Structures are given as C-alpha cells and as structure tokens.
C-alpha cells in the first residue's frame, strides 16, 4: 500500500463535510465539484435520503429525463419504502416505463399531485413550468455545471436552499444565438448555472469529491492535470489494482499492438498517416471498428478491485466516442459490417455520465485542416478521455500537434469574463503529448 492516505477515507471525509453543510449548514447553497466517476450519483442519492430522513422534504432537479429516471431507480433501490414523486411532461413517453413497476414511485404531470411526498424529482425544463406551489425548503440540483444560467433562473424560486452538484470539466452549456452583449455580466444567461451562482454568492461553501473510482491510476493524473487544475483528484485504485489481458495473443498488426499497449499502460494511440480528410474519414472509422473487433475477438478480460476473478470484456462494456453524430453513425455502420453488435457508439454529449471498461475514441481533431472552437472545447475531450475503467485507445491521424500550433489565434476577448481554465488548446497539447508515449503507427 502506498504511503498516502486511503482514498476511501479521503472520499468519506469529503462526503461527510458536504452532508454536514447540506443538513446543518447555514448557507443557502452548497457547491460540489465532482470529477468523472467520483460518486456523484451516490452522493445525490445519499443526500436526498438523509434530508428526507431528517424530515426535510426536497425537490431534485436533473437536466435530462434519463438522469431523472436513473435517480428514481437508485432511490428505490436504496429505500424501497420511501415515497418518491416523478414529475413528468405531457409528451408521449415522458418517463422510463420501469418506474411503473416501482411501488414507492408516484408519477404525475402536475406538481400539486406530488406535494407532500418526501422527494419529488424532475427535469429543469419541467420544473420551469411549475407555478403556484409552496417553495420547497431544500433542493438538489444535479449536473449543475451543464445547466444554463437562465434555466436556473427559471426554477430558483421554487426552493429556499440547494445543494449543487456537477462536473466542472465536462461540456459547457451554450446557445445557438449570440449572447455576447451579456458577456462579463454576473448573470450572463448563457453561462453555467454554477458560475452565475458563485458570481453572486462567492462565500458559499465549495467542496470537491477527491477520488475518481472510475478512472484507473494510469488515467487519473493526466485527466486531473489537464482538465481539473483547480479541483484535482486522484484515482481510487493503485497501479496494479486494475489489469486488462487478452486470451488471444497479438497477431503483430497495428490494431493488436495498440491494444497490447493499452492493456499494459492504460492508453494507446493508433496513429494514421497525416492527411486532410472529411469528418467521416473512412480509414479512421474503419480503424476504430477494427480495434473494437480485435478487442472482442481476443477475449479481453478485466481484473479489478471488484472481485478476485477476471471478468470478460463483452460488447456492453465497450464504447466508442466521437465528436460528431455522423462519425458515430459511420462507426456503427462499420461495426455492423464487421459483425459487431451491442457496443455503444455515441458523441461526447451523449456519453456524459456513462462508464465502460474500455473505450475507443476518434480524436476530435483527426484529419482536420484547422482547429475550431468546437473541436478544441475542453469538455468534449474530457468526456471522451474519462469514460473508461481500464483502458482508452485513441485513433488519430498524425499532424494534430502541428495543427494546434499552425493557426495564429485571432480569438476575441470579452472584458469582465473570467478566463476559463483549462484552456482547450493547452489541454489538447497535454493529452497528445501523453498519448505520444503510447503511439503505434498504422497504415490502412
């Protein structure tokens, strides 16, 4: 065992402090920064149950229906007898049908029907339409960094005090119309809910969950340094606690060699020759699909702190991440051509919050002639690089480092706006130079 304190103890101390402030503190808000895999949902569930147990009915605000339903299910798992209200929209299919099977859960499109229940959960969008109810004493706002400031404005009147939990390193909220005229204002409606909250209430207690239980020791330092410079975290496991091995030996191909590299060190970079390509670069897409195919064919097995025996890495434990939907569609088609099914393939936006054993990523800048703000966005790269428990293989064409340096920046600067770190350009360089140490060249 290493000399540093036990990560479990560190995490427990942080959680106790957070719950202490939430239940017994006097501040109107508590902010928790939760890096990937740090146990955010566990914290939200626990905080909700403790508030309910203390006789403090609360409302919970999440950003998507999937997140809401997931929380309801987890609450029912922990406390099957506790009445929980699921407020939903009047659209068709407003919630996961699984909820209908849970006895403690009541669903309704009207908040009044659910008043009096200990916990009422819904999306920010639905809560914004709720009027004429008594404000709740407490609220928990989940994924508060992905919530836009104006979405918070629409619901903040519904509660007195709140616990805000979120991941500061993931994708920022944005607007398709310009919001420059409010840049620099503390209540810029296009900024994140947390930045507005803290701009007006800087004295609120801010905590961070210090341990990622998901990221292996090979990944936590890179992700923490590159994407969380102000809220660093460590891995919950040590080198050697997680292992990935293959039943079938390498056939010497580039795909096999990069898989071996990833199994050994936690990272792999499959580098294709430099070229400017369309977004759905067929060679890169095929390379991604081949890596997945070989991973499954070679019978990957993962050993972790969860149990003594290796667990097979099956298709459901693997994911492919891309920047664009059409790239995801192309990879799905390529996988289908290779006879692979059951592997999740999605964009960073849709992979947020999810976890896998091994991920294969098509680098956002691969094959591009320039680096736009979208592709440089830190949150995107952070999500793609932080979904895995064991290993991450990145597929990318050579030349990206030069691309980052080649174009003189002509980025405008708005007065009064706090500079956001980490900077996408620097984070990309940091990740690339780390990946360079695990590079395998490959010609299609």
């Amino acid at each position, binding site marked *: 065992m290493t000399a540093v304190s036990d990560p479990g103890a560190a995490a427990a101390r942080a959680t106790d402090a957070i719950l202490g402030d939430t239940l017994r503190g006097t501040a109107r808000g508590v902010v928790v920064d939760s890096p990937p895999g740090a146990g955010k949902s566990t914290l939200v569930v626990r905080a909700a149950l403790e508030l309910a147990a203390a006789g403090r009915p609360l409302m919970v605000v999440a950003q998507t229906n999937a997140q809401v339903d997931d929380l309801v299910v987890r609450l029912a798992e922990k406390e099957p007898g506790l009445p929980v209200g699921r407020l939903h929209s009047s659209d068709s299919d407003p919630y996961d049908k699984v909820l209908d099977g849970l006895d403690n859960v009541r669903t309704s499109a009207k908040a009044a029907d659910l008043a009096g229940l200990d916990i009422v959960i819904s999306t920010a969008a639905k809560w914004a339409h709720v*009027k004429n109810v008594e404000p709740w004493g407490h609220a928990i706002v989940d994924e508060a960094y992905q919530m836009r400031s*104006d979405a918070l*404005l*629409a619901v903040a009147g519904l509660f007195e005090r709140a616990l805000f939990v979120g991941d500061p390193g993931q994708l920022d909220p944005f607007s398709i119309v310009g919001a420059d005229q409010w840049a620099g204002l503390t*209540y810029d*409606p296009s900024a994140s809910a947390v930045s*507005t909250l803290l701009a*007006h209430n800087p004295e609120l207690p801010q905590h961070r969950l210090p341990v990622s239980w998901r990221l292996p020791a090979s990944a936590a330092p890179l992700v923490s340094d590159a994407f969380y410079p102000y809220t660093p975290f460590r891995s919950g496991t040590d080198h050697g606690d997680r292992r990935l091995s293959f039943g079938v030996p390498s056939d010497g191909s580039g795909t096999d060699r990069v898989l071996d590299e990833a199994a050994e060190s936690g990272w792999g970079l499959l580098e294709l020759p430099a070229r400017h390509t369309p977004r759905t670069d067929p060679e890169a897409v095929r390379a991604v699909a081949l890596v997945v195919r070989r991973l499954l064919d070679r019978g990957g097995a993962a050993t972790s702190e969860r149990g003594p025996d290796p667990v097979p890495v099956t298709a459901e434990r693997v994911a492919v991440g891309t920047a664009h939907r059409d790239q995801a569609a192309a990879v799905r088609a390529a996988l289908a051509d290779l006879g692979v099914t059951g592997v999740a393939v999605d964009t960073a936006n849709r992979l947020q919050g999810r976890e896998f054993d091994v991920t294969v990523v098509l680098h956002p800048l691969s094959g591009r002639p320039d680096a736009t703000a979208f592709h440089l966005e830190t949150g995107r790269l952070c999500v793609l690089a932080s979904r895995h428990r064991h290993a991450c293989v990145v597929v990318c064409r050579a030349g990206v480092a030069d691309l980052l340096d080649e174009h003189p920046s002509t980025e405008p600067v708005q007065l009064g706006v706090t500079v956001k770190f980490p900077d996408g350009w620097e984070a990309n360089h940091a990740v690339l130079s780390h990946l360079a140490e695990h590079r395998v060249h490959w010609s299609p």
Partner: protein
Amino acid sequence: MSLISTLARLEAVDSGRAQPLATVRHRHLTDRPLVLVPLTTAGEAGAPLGALVGTDRAAPRLLAVPQPRDRDLRFAFLAELAEAVLPHIESYADAVEPAERNEVDPGTGKKVKVEVELCADAAQLIVPSRAGIDFVRLLGRSMRFRRTVEDDPDTPFPAPARVPLLGRWLTHYGERARVPGSSLLLAATDLVNRHWATGQSSLEDQHLGALLAWVDPPGGSGAEAALRAELERDRDGQLICPPAGPATDPAFDNKLLAPAIERYDRARSALGAAEDGLDADTRLGELSGAEREIRSLLAGVLLPTWDAVWRGLDLLRELPEGTRAQDRWTRDRWSFTGHRDRVLAGEPPQPRRDDAVTAAQKLASRETAQAQLDAQEALDDPLVLAGRRLAGEAFVGEVTEVEMAYSESKRPSPRPLVTVRTEERPHLGERTKVYRSLDGDPVRSQTAEFVAYATGETEDGEEGVGLVLRIMDRMGRGKEPAPGSVPEPGDRIAWTLFEHDQRGGPKLPDPEDTPWTHGGPPGAVGPGTAERPDPVTPEDLL
C-alpha cells in the same frame, strides 16, 4: 455553412457571378424604407462626420459636421438627424389597427384575449453594413440619456429637443436587430448575402461594393469587378468605390478632408477676428465656402454607397417575398408598437445594462426566433429546404401505400399507416416525429410518427428506402379521417423533422422576484437614477 452553400460559392467562382442561395426573399421590405448612410471620423471612437438619409433615392438629405470636435455642430447634426428620422417613424406610429393579444389575467391566472392597438405598418431602417448597425446602437446609447432644456433647465450642454427621443428609437431598433429574422433595422450587406453566394469569403462579403459587383457585375467577371471595387484608386489616390462606412478611407481623410476642415477652422477664427461689418461679411462668405466644400467632399464619398444600398434593395425586390416573411414582419410590428406604447406612457429610456430576468428573456425569445426562422425559411423555399434535406432534417418521398389503422382507446381515432419511398437519409429513430404542411396553411402542420423501415422487395432499379409513418392528427373528429386529410398513394410530400411552429419557453419570474442565485432583485432605483445622463466633458466625441 452547409455544403449546398459552399457549392454555390464555388459555382460563383467558376461562373464569375454570384449564385442564388434562395428562390424567394426571406425578409420583408416595406414600400418606403428609410435609408441611412452614416460617416464617422477616423480613429477608433469615431465621432459623427455626416450622413445621407431619406426615403427617396433621388433626393437624399445630406447632413454634415464640418468640425467634428465642435459640440454645437455635433448637436446640430443630431437635431437634424432627429428631424429627418422621427417624423418618418411617427407617421407609422400613428396609423393603427385593432388586434388581439393573449394575456394572463392577473386575477384568475387564466389566458384571456385582450383588444389592443397594433401599428398597421412599421418604419423600416436600412443601413449599408453591420458596422452601420453598430453605429446606430452607438448613437442610440449616446443620445437616449441626454437631457433637453425641457427635461431639466439647469442641465449643462442641453441636447436639442427630440434628440433623446431619437436615441430611444435607435436603441430599440438596434436591439431588435439582434433578433433572428427581424426586419426593422437591416444591413444591405446582410440582406444581399442571405440571398446570394459570391465567389469570395464571407469576410470579403462585408464590403458592399465588392458584394454587389458579384451579384450584379457590370458586364464581364464579377471577380474582377469586385477587386476593382475593393482596391482601385484614381489619379489622386482616392478609392473609386469609397468604403460603405461609417469609417472613411485614410487617403480621403489625409488628402482631402483634413485640409478642408483646416480651412474651415481658419475661416471660423478669421470670422471671429473680423474688425467690422464688411470684413465680417467677406469672412462669413469664406466660411460658407469652406463649409460647402466639406459638404461636397462628404457627398462625394457618401453618394456611391447610397446608390449601392438602393441597388441592393432593387435586386432584392426582384425576388418574390416568402409567405412566412410577412408573419415575421407582423412580429416586428408588435415590437414597434410596444416601443411606441412605452414612449407614450412616459416610461424611462432603456437602461444601460439589462437586468438578469430581461437578459434571460431576450436569450430565450431569440432562440425561439432562430428556430422559427430556420423552419419558416425552409418551408417557404425549396432551396433552403434542400439544405435541411442534405442534413437529414427533412426528406421528400412518394407515398406508395396507405393502410388504415386506429388508436387503442375507448373512442378510437384514425391512425393510418403510410409508406413513403425516399432516396434521402433522414435521421430517424424510434417514434421520431415528422411534420408536413397542410394545403395553404402557413402555420398548421400534420404530425406523423416514424414506425419502421418498410420490409419487402424493392422493384428493379428502385433506389432508396421505404419508411412507414403513422399519421397522428388533423384528421377531424370522427372515426374515419376527413376526406383529403390523409396522404394518398402517388403523392409526393416533403416531411420535416423540425416543427413548423415553435413554442415559446416557460415564463420567467418578474425582475422584482429575481432569485438570490442571480443576485436578487435589481437595486431599488429612484426616479431619475437609472437614466442619469453621462457626465459631460470638454472633449466628448459624441
């Protein structure tokens, strides 16, 4: 930029003239727009130098500031601008028609229809370029907090009457210009760029002269004409096509304008030093001459841009107006009427900074407006729809089969299944909703749900896929669908994955109820505090 627009640009390069990006005009043009071509002094914080303004292309009104540093001359310019613009605006403000609006009754909390006045039409303002729009905002900001002698007899350097009112209107127009699809204040470059693709980059498209050279080349190559417009100079080094402004060309400033202003200054001092009446008369004559010279120089650089704006409007009027552009203009009329009402009610001018709730409301309504604009332009124009089809957000297909089906409820309603064959690849997922227009109705649409891809054999030579859609609404109240409400085999229909009408967002709290997360209600504002005028200094620019 969609690939279709890119292709249009490349075709423009190849053919030497601009290529269409639209088959209809997507912005309403009134019968008598007011064109404003402003000019400012060199330097980064440009003080007004002059302008051409008017509704008649043959009779522009020239405003000039012979010495931009002189506050009195500047104020005279602003007063004249107010005289040129306000009566035009007010003529529209006075012509109203009755209209209905939905409001929430404060007593019952229910939606009620309220009878209000809506201006029958609204004043439309056209400037040459986006820099012109920025200048309109700047003028509005500088003017609306000023006090006239009437407002406050003790105010130092009172503004001429009506200048603050002009400032408020310009601010309103400048702010409305940020709403996607609005047409109260338009830049000629934006108007033209929306409808044509040139063979140059969008940065270069901001040069009105070069842009028009591509769209309407004077014989021969658009590229050459555009290059000449950008760069060609006469023997004296002056640009043949002066910049659209408001900034002037340095060669003009240094060689022509500065000496003329200097002559004016000397003539003014000389007049001041005149020793007798006769002397004064002569010197007054010289001063008038100097002023005429400046006016003539300004007219020389303003008129080409003035003509260019009108030419641009002519080109746009050749396109038929899109049906839904009229609907967006109605929203502009509501905006115009709203501001008119606020002025009539004696409300204070717009504050310097929006409060949290206002900012959030503006953002939300602009997002709705953008979605509405995108949908409406596609519905009005097959060329715009083509872009959405390429993106997988719409598709055109032929109905091959219709199978009757019903909903499973106590009173079954029709839910016919329609099979559509298309060669396109829309992004359809389970139960994705798609919409189609119903005959002649610009707003109402029929909804269908994607069920599955059609199985079964394709005929020889047939390309594309079959999609099974379930029609969900607009079939009347009976068990059987009303005649004509269901597509029939052989119909060729355009389906969109985007809704034809956008719902607005949820209601935000009132500013007095701004929550603690956003800093609480804006500070208590006493009468007159928010619209404090800017402090006046001896070296003001505006």
